[in-house]
């Protein structure tokens, strides 16, 4: 029989009618929508038990206390550790994304020699050869760690030299070393007892020092108060974040900080607003006014305001002798609420900015900010976890990223309170990475590893019986019956806290330092990594929070 078009139509009508009363259309409708809710290409978080570990951030020398949320052995989130005596539960904005850094596309995964991929063996051989041929200079950015002492002892063994790249906050303290003999690295600000803080462009509310240290203090004693216990006077050209929130903001041209400091000092001395502690600046008030573009009256008012609520301390954004001299005049050097020194005496470091000795090889630790470029023609071995591109290094050596190696955290710069913490390796590093210290130890087995040094430091603590360990609760060191216990506590994230800063050291200033009007470029925080956490890069791009110019390394 012949099937006509009509038959087909009737048949399909029947089929359609039938299909309606089967699960087909309805189940398909349901399943496709469910499929659209769980597209297989949507990335899924890891499954597994969640545990929160206490540790400290090792990405810059500020070593903020951190709570790290771990799932199935991977860090999946970070938060500030409230019990940390310095950072007090705060982190820098970048800190909240550090757990993603290890996965950054620019993560270094291979040894690189020049432009081509090489191996650790070749790097080791090349380095050993260099060591035999001449002195080796070691540069690092995070002194005082166990790893640092490995680097330092090595450089000494190689009769080379050990150099340190210091953050702007620390450099601002360098001037006092010459006048008081106290090494820069053991000087700090006693902000807790200060009543007036005069910031010469220092980004106090924007990552200066340990983020929590000052911001918490400011929030408690100053923020939004018309007559605060803590006055923050910001002297800066532009309306920075700090200036925007300061109790008083005075705009001065860039580079006129020294002149302003001199001017203020002169008024203080002339008007006997302070007991004279230092020499009269050579600069006259009129000259100071001319330099700063402020009227002499404004300068006088400023000086009076500063003197009206003491202790007052001036903070420079970078190395600035004039501002340091102003502190001497204010009598705030070696005084409560001013510049004090830490109880533990650390040695003097040679800054890497100083002229480098002629060396055969240069070992740059991962803690050195990427943008630091040594002026040398030696063979450079650059350790880094991330590749910032266009490196001056002959060898680029992949080192552990965030929480991938055990590190210890010495007292943080700018904070008077002595601390010591350990950040254990919480997550496993890619097998091909090695830190500078590990590298050196692998070259020479006689070297004591960082881990061993950390343990011996615990023993020191145990013997000294000073201070207390801050875990869930505070336990005095004296209460511990073995160094082992201290070690355990520390590697569980407890923080050792020593005594407060010590005032009362002599600081003699013969004559007013020569004013150099060409100073001050603000680098708010040392961020050694050449990359930002991807989320930071994203948020800076997707919001007007920071101008592109403020975006570093992103």
């Amino acid at each position, binding site marked *: 029989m012949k099937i006509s078009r009509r038959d087909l139509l009737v*048949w399909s009508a029947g089929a359609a009618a039938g*299909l309606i009363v089967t699960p087909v259309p309805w189940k398909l409708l349901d399943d496709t929508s469910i499929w659209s809710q769980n597209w297989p290409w949507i990335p899924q978080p890891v499954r597994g038990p969640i545990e929160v570990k206490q540790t400290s951030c090792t990405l810059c020398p500020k070593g903020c206390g951190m709570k790290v949320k771990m799932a199935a052995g991977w860090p999946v989130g970070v938060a500030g550790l409230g019990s940390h005596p310095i950072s007090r539960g705060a982190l820098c904005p970048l800190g909240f994304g550090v757990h993603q850094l290890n996965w950054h596309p620019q993560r270094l995964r291979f040894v690189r020699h020049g432009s081509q991929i090489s191996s650790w063996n070749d790097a080791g051989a090349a380095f050993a050869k260099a060591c035999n041929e001449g002195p080796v200079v070691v540069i690092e950015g995070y002194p005082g760690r166990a790893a640092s002492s490995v680097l330092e002892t090595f450089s000494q063994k190689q009769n080379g030299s050990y150099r340190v790249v210091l953050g702007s906050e620390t450099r601002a303290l360098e001037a006092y070393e010459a006048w008081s003999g106290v090494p820069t690295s053991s000087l700090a600000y006693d902000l807790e007892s200060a009543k007036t803080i005069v910031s010469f462009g220092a980004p106090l509310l924007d990552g200066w020092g340990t983020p929590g240290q000052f911001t918490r203090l400011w929030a408690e004693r100053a923020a939004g108060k018309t007559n605060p216990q803590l006055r923050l006077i910001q002297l800066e050209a532009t309306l920075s974040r700090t200036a925007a929130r300061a109790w008083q903001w005075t705009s001065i041209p860039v580079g006129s900080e020294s002149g302003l400091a001199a001017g203020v000092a002169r008024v203080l001395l002339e008007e006997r607003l302070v007991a004279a502690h230092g020499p009269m600046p050579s600069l006259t008030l009129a000259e100071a006014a001319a330099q700063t573009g402020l009227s002499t009256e404004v300068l006088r008012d400023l000086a009076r305001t500063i003197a009206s609520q003491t202790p007052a301390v001036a903070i420079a954004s970078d190395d600035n002798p004039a501002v340091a001299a102003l502190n001497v005049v204010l009598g705030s050097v070696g005084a409560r609420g001013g510049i004090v020194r830490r109880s533990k005496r650390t040695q003097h470091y040679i800054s890497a900015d100083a002229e480098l000795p002629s060396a055969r090889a240069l070992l740059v630790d991962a803690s050195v900010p990427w943008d630091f470029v040594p002026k040398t023609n030696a063979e450079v071995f650059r350790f880094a976890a991330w590749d910032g591109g266009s490196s001056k290094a002959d060898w680029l050596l992949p080192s552990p990223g965030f929480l991938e190696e055990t590190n210890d955290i010495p007292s943080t710069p700018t904070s008077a309170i002595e601390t010591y913490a350990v950040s254990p390796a919480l997550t496993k590093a890619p097998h091909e990475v090695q830190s500078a210290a590990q590298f050196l130890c692998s070259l020479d087995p006689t070297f004591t590893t960082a881990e061993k040094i950390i343990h011996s430091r615990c023993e020191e603590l145990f013997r000294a019986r000073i201070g207390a360990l801050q875990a869930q609760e505070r336990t005095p060191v004296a209460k511990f019956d073995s160094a082992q216990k201290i070690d355990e506590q520390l590697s569980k994230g407890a923080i050792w806290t020593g005594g407060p800063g010590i005032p009362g050291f002599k600081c003699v200033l013969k004559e007013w330092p020569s004013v150099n009007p060409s100073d001050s470029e603000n680098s708010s925080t040392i961020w050694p990594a050449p990359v930002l956490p991807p989320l930071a890069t994203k948020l800076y791009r997707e919001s007007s929070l920071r101008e592109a110019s403020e975006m570093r390394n992103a």
Partner: protein
Amino acid sequence: MSRTTLTFGFGLAMALLVGWVAFPRALYTQKQQPLEFRHKTHAEKSGVAECNECHAVREDGAFAGIPSMEKCATCHSERIGESKAEAVLVDNFIKPGHETPWLVYARQPANVWFSHAIHLKRAALACTECHSTYGESDQVRAYEVNRISGYSRDIWGHSISRLRRAPHEGMKMSDCEDCHARRNVEVGCLGCHE
């Protein structure tokens, strides 16, 4: 009967056949579990009486789910008996320390948040309320997965029409809602979703 009626009926019948018989078979695909496991045997031989001896709720309220290999290793560190499954367990998983990639029948998608703690402790529900008597089963049944949505078949339930299905069958949102309605427990969307 006219030719029209016949052709119509023919179409109708074919559709019904495809819809009710062929379609359900085509929609799901079967996967075998990586290991053989007998709840019954463990209850009898090793004297495990309570579900939560292996499937416990942690103190932070999270559910431990299927126990890790360590748990198994406490007894199965060496082969017990000569069965092939035993050999597979010890040689392929315990010795090398691999976790067993179980296919979880009741696994909800990532956007669902279900707290065993709340249902067991606060609502005091028995495991069997949702998981039926699987805890007494004597073998692992095949794992059926929906080809389109990628869900386990247990979510929809075995009956394709969902009309005549066993009391514990089905773990769709509507099933949760029904149970909540019966016990008049009110939660918002994000009460059960992430």
